[in-house]
């Protein structure tokens, strides 16, 4: 997929877009290390932990795990139990990918996205913020991560399904 010689198909370009975005969000974990260390220093060194930092920790964590979902789809690193399926012909494996996306994952993602959007909307209407007086404002922003990251998740699964369809119905871009 990432060999430089081949001309990228539109699918590859989209995949790369998601990978690039993932590589940026990935730094949330690096930032998380710094925030935790800062908080520890303040708490133990100066006896004065900050609520803001504490909340920032789970904001970063939440951001990373939710957007990671689509990254892992593109990387094809979601764990599979492949003891038996290894022996399936490649065609069968692609059919599983297509049917699974159509009947399981895409409906699931649409349902979560709709509910997630409601969840965000509730928070947005009430301009929800942290209950702690010194906490972070904009609680709706982190809640918006759920529907947005699920749209990403759904899109990458759709792209994967398209790849499998291309493979099944004869197109050289379908190979992976």
């Amino acid at each position, binding site marked *: 997929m990432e060999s430089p010689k081949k001309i990228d198909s539109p699918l590859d370009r989209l995949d790369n877009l998601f990978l690039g975005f993932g590589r940026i969000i990935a730094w949330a*974990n690096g930032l*998380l290390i710094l925030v935790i260390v800062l908080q520890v220093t303040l708490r133990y060194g100066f006896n004065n932990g900050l609520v803001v930092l504490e909340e920032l920790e*789970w904001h970063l964590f939440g951001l990373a795990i939710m957007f*990671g979902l689509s*990254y892992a789809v593109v*990387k094809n690193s979601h764990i599979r139990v492949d003891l038996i399926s290894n022996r399936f012909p490649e065609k069968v494996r692609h059919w599983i990918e297509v049917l*699974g996306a159509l009947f*399981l*994952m895409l409906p699931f993602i649409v349902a979560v996205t709709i509910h997630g959007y409601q969840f965000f909307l509730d928070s947005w209407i009430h301009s929800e913020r942290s209950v702690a007086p010194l906490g972070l404002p904009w609680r709706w922003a982190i809640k918006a991560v759920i529907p947005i990251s699920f749209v990403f998740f759904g899109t990458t699964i759709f792209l994967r399904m398209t790849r499998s369809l291309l493979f099944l119905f004869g197109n050289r871009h379908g190979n992976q």
Partner: protein
Amino acid sequence: MEINDYLVIAMFVSFIALLLSGYPVAYCLAGTSILFTGIGYFSDQYLGTITGLDFNYFGLVVPRIFKTMTNWVLISVPMFIFMGLMLDKSGIAERLMVSAQELFGKVRGGLAITVMFIGVLLAASTGIIGASVVMLGLISIPAMLKQGYHKTLALGTVASAGTLGILIPPSIMLVVMGDQLSVSVGDLFLGAVLPGLLLAFLYVVYLLVYCYLKPDVAPLAPDRRPITWGVLFEVIKRVIPPLFFILSVLGSIFTGIATVTEASGVGALMAMFLAIFYKKFNFSVLKEVICSTYNTTAYIFGILIGATCFALVLRGLGGDELVERLLTSLPFGDYGIIAFILFIVFLLGFFLDWIEISLIVLPLVAPVVSALDIAVNGYGVVSRPEVIWFIIMVAVTLQTSFLTPPVGFALFYLKGITPPSINLSDIYKGVVPFIILQLLGLLAIILFPQLVLWLPAFIYG
């Protein structure tokens, strides 16, 4: 049985069938959850069941996902993963390997013991069964084979040392299990120390005795130096930084100075310093570690989110009550029920990693275990001692399961990284003695819960 019960069974069966199709585990869980929301809805309409499942009920998954995002304890998971990957990249494992070998070079089986030692020390931080076995195998199998070790011995050692790593703290598995059953992760870490050391001790004794009785399976290194004070000093100098590192991370948790999350963040930073100290650190290493941390975290939490949805719908169908009813109606008595649960966990371990098992099975059986009439002494210090004891038993059972032919996880990962001249049957033969030792260890924990509970009670008491 009522229609509800059949639906619960159908849900489990579809999940397992989907799993075997090679569709990603996280998707199988998530997909079954939406599928059975639909099935539950229609069965309410046409079959007269009262599951209450519909599109709105399914909406409850969103607050649950949000609760995962705000989960304080789970923040430590990416931190420990970062720490493990960074330690791996810093070349500490190789360094330890070389130095420990100098020390144990004169002992028969010394190299195998070194591997065991490194497995315990380092695999602890990677947590994922595949990752620890692969890492350990890559650095140690070539060395052992080069020295003329019999291949079954070499393979058995790596597989068992790698799986031992998932038990020994800081183990991600214990973080997730503790979070699921809402017990203190600190208690669990401490509880795992003695059982882990017991298993390591059994392994080492076995290796020593076996290599003494059959010297040809483990030849000594031809170029070994005699142990002088100089060598000893050199070894100590090399071992101290990583040892200090591991002990300070664990120590701050054990002594209650820091929370698990705080210790994990500081540990991640210290791992980075260690890599700088060994001159293995640069920006591209950092980038690589950051990206793999992101990736590993993503697939763990993919399964976690899938399992959350699965559990929600299963509860809607009445799965919790069904499992409880089934377990309590077993005619085995209290220990029998525990043995039965462990047996099921053992079987599941053949095709599921610990993540799925701790997320799906543990919450289902936990109420039954809490209600059993087995007096587990928490010394008045440890809260919910029977749950701590139970979790450690499950952990050791899983570990055994990962080692057990024909389909143990560790065995396949090991096969994947060894030269083609090594057959799966060599690996199978190699792990048999270790499985027996595992079962001995498990039996000891079942019979003597104090093995788990004494240390947390002693430290916190």
